[in-house]
């Protein structure tokens, strides 16, 4: 028993070490028929169909008449094509107003959060003072806490400030983010110290070092945080639902949910509204898809 195994081992070892050829051959024979790749395409196309079909149905339904949207058997191609539902979205909702609110909220939150988190992330990465680690750990604990726990006191604070139902009231807590601070701190820590010291020798002060030297280097991290903040802020629902309370400060997400409260039962209207409300972010994504995907990959691996 012992002899054959030792022979096999003696025979096997040299093959892998000496000959690079077998490494290539099985690979080539494995791929040559193209069969595995064929099944990969089949599975991915089926999967994509599941992802895309709801969007397709959303678009088709939004172009149907009131009865066409709920007919049995279903209309697949709208008959007749009509933009009635889109016109009705603008009649039923103060759409431009809501869109303006959403844009304003997203811009304020994103710019504010990115600036503040970049500064704080840099501060935590590069400066040293007593109590820094305690403070940082306290902030990290926030990441473990479900948002609802601080939602109530945040609501109280905004109410005390008299900001309920205003854009600043909805935007304010979102200007600050533990996640963003943590993300950028991780980023700044990977940047070499030498650059900073070289700039300091050239007589730059701390702000100039941050703004002119470090900030450009942290661009990938900043882009990731910008896109993620914009996405979350655009789609945010519970907080603006609780705080906005009126159409003047309401973002699209909350406004869209109002369409379900109406006893209209107009599915074409709902689909048109859903499409119009998500379209801006989808367009931004399609334009900046590489940055979005890198941003998500970045947070998943670093966070």
């Amino acid at each position, binding site marked *: 028993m012992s002899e054959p195994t030792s022979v096999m081992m003696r025979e096997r070892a040299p093959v892998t070490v000496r000959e690079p050829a077998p490494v290539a051959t099985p*690979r080539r024979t*494995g791929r040559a028929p193209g069969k595995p*790749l064929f099944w*990969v395409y089949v599975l*991915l196309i089926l*999967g*994509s169909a*599941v*992802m*895309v079909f*709801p*969007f397709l*149905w959303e678009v088709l*339904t939004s172009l149907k008449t009131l009865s066409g949207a709920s007919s*049995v058997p*279903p209309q697949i191609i709208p008959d007749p094509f009509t933009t009635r539902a889109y016109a009705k979205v603008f009649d039923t909702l103060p759409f431009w107003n809501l869109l303006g609110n959403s844009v304003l909220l997203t811009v304020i939150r994103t710019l504010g959060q990115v600036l*503040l988190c970049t*500064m*704080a992330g*840099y*501060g935590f990465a*590069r400066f*040293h*003072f007593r109590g820094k680690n305690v*403070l940082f750990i306290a*902030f990290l604990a*926030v990441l*473990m*806490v*479900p*948002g*609802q*726990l*601080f939602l*109530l006191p945040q609501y*109280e*604070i905004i109410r005390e400030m008299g900001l309920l139902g205003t854009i600043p009231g909805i935007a*304010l807590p979102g*200007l600050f983010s*533990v996640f963003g*601070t943590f993300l950028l701190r991780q980023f700044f820590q990977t940047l070499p*110290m030498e650059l900073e010291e070289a700039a300091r020798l050239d007589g730059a002060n701390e*702000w100039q070092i941050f703004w002119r030297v470090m900030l450009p280097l942290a661009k990938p991290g900043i882009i990731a945080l910008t896109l993620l903040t914009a996405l979350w802020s655009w*789609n945010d*629902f*519970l907080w603006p639902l609780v705080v906005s309370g009126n159409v003047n400060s309401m973002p699209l997400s909350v406004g*869209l949910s109002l*369409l*379900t409260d109406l006893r209209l039962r107009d599915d074409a209207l*709902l*689909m048109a509204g*859903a499409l119009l*409300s*998500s379209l801006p*972010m989808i367009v931004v*994504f399609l334009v900046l898809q590489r940055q979005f*995907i890198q941003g*998500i990959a970045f947070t*998943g*691996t670093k966070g």
Partner: protein
Amino acid sequence: MTRQLRGRNAAPRRSAAQLSRGRAWWAVLFIGPAGLGLVVFYLWPIIRGIYLSFQDVGPFGGETFVGIDNFVEVFSEPDLGRALLNTLLYAVICLIGIPVAMIIAVLINTKGLKGRSLFRVLFFLPVVTMPVAVALVWRLLLNVDYGVLNLSLRAIGLPGVAWLSTPVVNMVVIAIVGIWMGLGTQIIIFTAGLQGIPDTLIEAAELDGAGPVRRFVSVIVPLLSPTTFLLSVLSVIASMQVFDLIFLMIDPNNPAQSQSQSLVSLFYTRGFLQHDLGAAAAIACVLLAIILVLSAIQFRLQRRWVHYE
């Protein structure tokens, strides 16, 4: 990780000592604005939130200490138990999305595949779509009378199902919508994990005669286990807080509405519809406790199945 951080902090400490004390003021300038906001809007609210759960809060303010009355009250209602079970069911079903995402990530990263970035974009599309819009579209697809799903079932002779107005069934269905919505993110994080697997390991398995399935099971799955672990912790934390989809897919006219609440929808009902902030705070504290316990269990179990190189 802590070791890494300390190592990095050690270097600047020396250079900081060489510099003037003025640097401390710069630290205040950099951290101050965000730090103040985080303390006011995040740290203090945690303490305040826990404090509120022991108070009876009147509709116009005015607090009285009531001990654990809020918790007793919340726990004695059947709503909480049901919401807890619904939320746990939702969270468990959502975990199924993780292996699905892993398989799709591996498929998308197959060597020689064309249209890779198109597939990635298609799977990512729901991630950037407003959850409110997602809920409305799926509500239409799942409509009992004229939803596409039921019409297709009837076309092949099966009975339709009241997907959204049957308790339990609706939680499963909404969890599947939740998976659909989050799959893109998970695929991308798995893709990042896959890129960390050295080609030599896959080639070695190939050389040993392992086919694609065997390579997946014996090489890729174990090597991706840290990513799988990260995603399952994040998935549980996120799905325990499910609100948007349930709130919008199950409207007040739905006969199963009272039986189909999640913990956060109960929180919203108690806090903002019934204006009982104390009870809402108690529910949020229960949620915090459950998330901490579930995360601790996951960290404890990871030793059994997560392989770190």
